[in-house]
């Protein structure tokens, strides 16, 4: 199996490399470039996942690594332009991932655990946030670009940086839960906490960046908090509308629901980009609406969308991997690794404190932090905002932030998968569908 997968990767890699040599160096063909990158990344990601399956490692890490290795920073089989052309796929993937998360979150079922979810979310955010704030405050004395800052300015840099780095990754958590078919208290708690906490982080980032702009008047104008609030509530409203459309479709038509869901999320991502709406919030609100308000229920659609889930995850995380700035990471590696370790420490501290206050199940106490370590989509998006909005210091601090995210992106899924296996919540042996005998 592994040999076959390696040979396939080599064959497809050689074909893609040869194809790129048809046009002058650096040139790309609009449309074809994206199609080629999509095809290559999807095939290679699926094959890499087979190799990782054999090693007992998460497929998600395989997807990310194959994007990283074949992306512009290492082998450059897939160029930066080609990755840019895949932005629309990324938006749809984020929407789909969030939609699946929303479909899993039934508030009625979670009500008995709501106190625990809120307490854990709050304490882990505060725990990691405080440690990261102190760390970045110290780092401002070391980085040349922030060395001359006043105390208030240093505090603002630390606030922005810690706000970005406390974020979790619903996409990675859902991806791991999906590939391991995990079900149980740890799976449910991990997903609930990361989704809820990331909703809070989107709002707190909007607030903290608005305050930071007052301290750094030279920073880009950006969006005011009112505008951001409109976008947040607009996204939620958009999600409710999308949920309504999907519910009506299932009730009235019912066929090809998976493709229809994908198409609606694709349209909402495209419209959302034009209207500055967040595809994650749209997808999440749509899923929550279906699961908690609509009589249709989310499970029906999430089952129907299963067929497109694997390709979506593969391509999304491969693109995320291809976007990793490896060279920049090498320069800031010590800070990045220290940041990742402090963040992990803060999360563990938060879960332990919550455990003491709420008398949590020992399994949750021991294993839950692993579900909160991963970072990807939202953290990268926020770090990119720091890079773009707070020049010149934002470029340096943003690179450190991205470095920390890289560490969490690559290492944390392995820990989370192991934790799920040890908790006995995975269902790895059950094949999706038995191979049929040949009809010949």
């Amino acid at each position, binding site marked *: 199996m592994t040999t076959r997968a390696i040979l396939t990767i080599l064959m497809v890699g050689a074909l893609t490399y040869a194809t790129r040599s048809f046009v002058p160096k650096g040139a790309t063909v609009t449309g074809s470039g994206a199609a080629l990158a999509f095809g290559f990344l999807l095939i290679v990601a*699926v094959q890499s996942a087979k190799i990782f399956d054999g090693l007992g490692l998460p497929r998600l890490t395989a997807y990310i690594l194959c994007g990283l290795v074949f992306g512009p920073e290492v082998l450059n089989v897939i160029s930066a332009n080609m990755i840019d052309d895949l932005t629309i796929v990324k938006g749809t993937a984020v929407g789909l991932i969030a939609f699946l998360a929303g479909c899993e979150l039934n508030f009625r079922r979670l009500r008995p655990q709501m106190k625990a979810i809120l307490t854990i979310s709050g304490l882990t955010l505060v725990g990691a946030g405080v440690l990261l704030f102190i760390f970045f405050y110290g780092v401002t004395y070391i980085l040349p670009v922030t060395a001359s800052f006043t105390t208030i300015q240093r505090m603002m840099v630390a606030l922005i940086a810690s706000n970005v780095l406390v974020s979790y990754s619903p996409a990675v958590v859902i991806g791991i839960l999906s590939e391991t078919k995990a079900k149980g208290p740890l799976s449910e708690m991990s997903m609930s906490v990361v989704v809820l906490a990331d909703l809070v982080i989107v709002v707190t980032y909007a607030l903290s960046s608005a305050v930071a702009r007052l301290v750094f008047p030279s920073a880009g104008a950006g969006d005011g908090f009112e505008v951001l609030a409109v976008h947040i509530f607009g996204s939620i409203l958009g999600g409710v509308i999308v949920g309504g459309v999907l519910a009506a479709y299932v009730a009235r038509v019912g066929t090809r629901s998976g493709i229809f869901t994908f198409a609606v999320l694709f349209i909402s991502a495209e419209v959302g980009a034009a209207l500055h709406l967040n595809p994650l919030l749209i997808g999440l609100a749509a899923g929550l609406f279906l699961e908690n308000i609509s009589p249709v229920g989310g499970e029906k659609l999430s089952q129907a969308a299963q067929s497109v889930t694997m390709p979506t995850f593969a391509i999304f995380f491969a693109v995320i991997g291809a976007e990793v700035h490896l060279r920049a990471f090498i320069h800031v590696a010590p800070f990045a690794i220290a940041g990742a370790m402090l963040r992990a420490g803060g999360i563990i501290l938060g879960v332990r404190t919550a455990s003491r206050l709420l008398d949590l199940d020992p399994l949750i106490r021991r294993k839950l932090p692993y579900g909160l370590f991963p970072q990807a989509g939202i953290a990268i998006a926020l770090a990119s905002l720091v890079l773009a909005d707070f020049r010149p210091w934002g470029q340096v601090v943003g690179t450190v932030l991205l470095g920390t995210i890289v560490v969490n992106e690559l290492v944390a899924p392995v820990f989370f998968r192991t934790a799920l296996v040890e908790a006995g919540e995975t269902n790895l042996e059950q*094949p999706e569908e038995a191979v049929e005998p040949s009809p010949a």
Partner: protein
Amino acid sequence: MPAEQVARVVLALAVAVGFAVLGAHPRVMRWERRFGLTVLATSGFPFLLLGLLFRELGVMTDQLLRDLRPLFEFGLGWVGLAVGMNLDIRRFDRLPPSLAPVMALASVLPILSAAIACTLTLAMLGVIPGEGLIRDALILMACAAVSAPANLDLLLKKFRGATQLVLEVTRVDQLAALGIIGFVAIVFRPDRTVTLWHLPRSGWFMMTLGLGALLGVVLYLLVRKVEDRTEELAILMGGVALASGMAGYLALSVAVVCALAGVVLINFPVRRGERIVSTLREVERPLYFLFLFIIGVSWRPDEWQGWVLGGVFAISRAYGKILAARIAVWRREDFPPWRNLAASLMPESSIAIVVLFSATALEAVTEGAVRWAINAVIVGSIATEIGVQWFQRRERLAIGAQAMNGDPA
């Protein structure tokens, strides 16, 4: 984006989603099957109108079209692969040898008659050789080639041999159309191509064949040992996207290269070939809607030349089909009356949409004659559909009258 534009986009998308829901409704699909209707004439037509409306409202921006371009290429590749997978040589081997010349005639005659009539009409409308006459005539030929079976249960009841002929002819027609489009892509290669390779046309022809065959082998190696249906879908999507991207990089026809890959794939000893075909079919219908929508953006129903060309296209194509049916009935005594056979082969297949899309939208050709060709195919397709439905209704009434009179026929 200004508020007015936002409102337009939201409204337009709401209408599009509404049509998509209607188009996918099982009742609509049952209705299509029952009456032998094509996608273009029924659930697809609103998408055409929607494209037209979106252009008028200014919703379809260049940026939006650019963003969708990878999806267009992927869609062409997907449909191309599905068409190619129809050509299972083993099935053709099982057909009676006497059917082969009849099938060839049934495919070639409509193409020839439409080619002669449409070329003359285009020339009379002022399109001159060297400025698109040959290319536009070839596009119309390809559109004339494709046919979809009408209501065979009604028209060819008790004529199994003829039913088989019609089904096989529709499959061969699709490949003939893609062959013509492949020829157009090679002979009329766009000047803007940035490919580093400079080959004679015969070289590009060999490249098309070679790339299609190579990608067929690659797809075979990829799907040969897939573990489950989800992985199969992922691999198919990846394979089609890779093939589309490679063909696009060389400025070859994406649909043609993928069709060739499909032919190679289905003729290898692939397990679960039927399942792969059904997966491809599952996604085909939404892709047709998308293509129709984009064709609608370039559609100009206000140009009278398109209506003239549409009339000529429909009549010449029908004439070719009738001629082929008469020859077939003359050669085979076990065939039904020629009218029934001709009507069975008459409807325009959805592949015409792909041909039009492949030849126009991707190359961004919007000059007059191409717009007329779009109108011609739309008008011709609807006129043909009306004619076939009228004939089927007459047949149904005749069968009803015979049943009332106690005639077992």
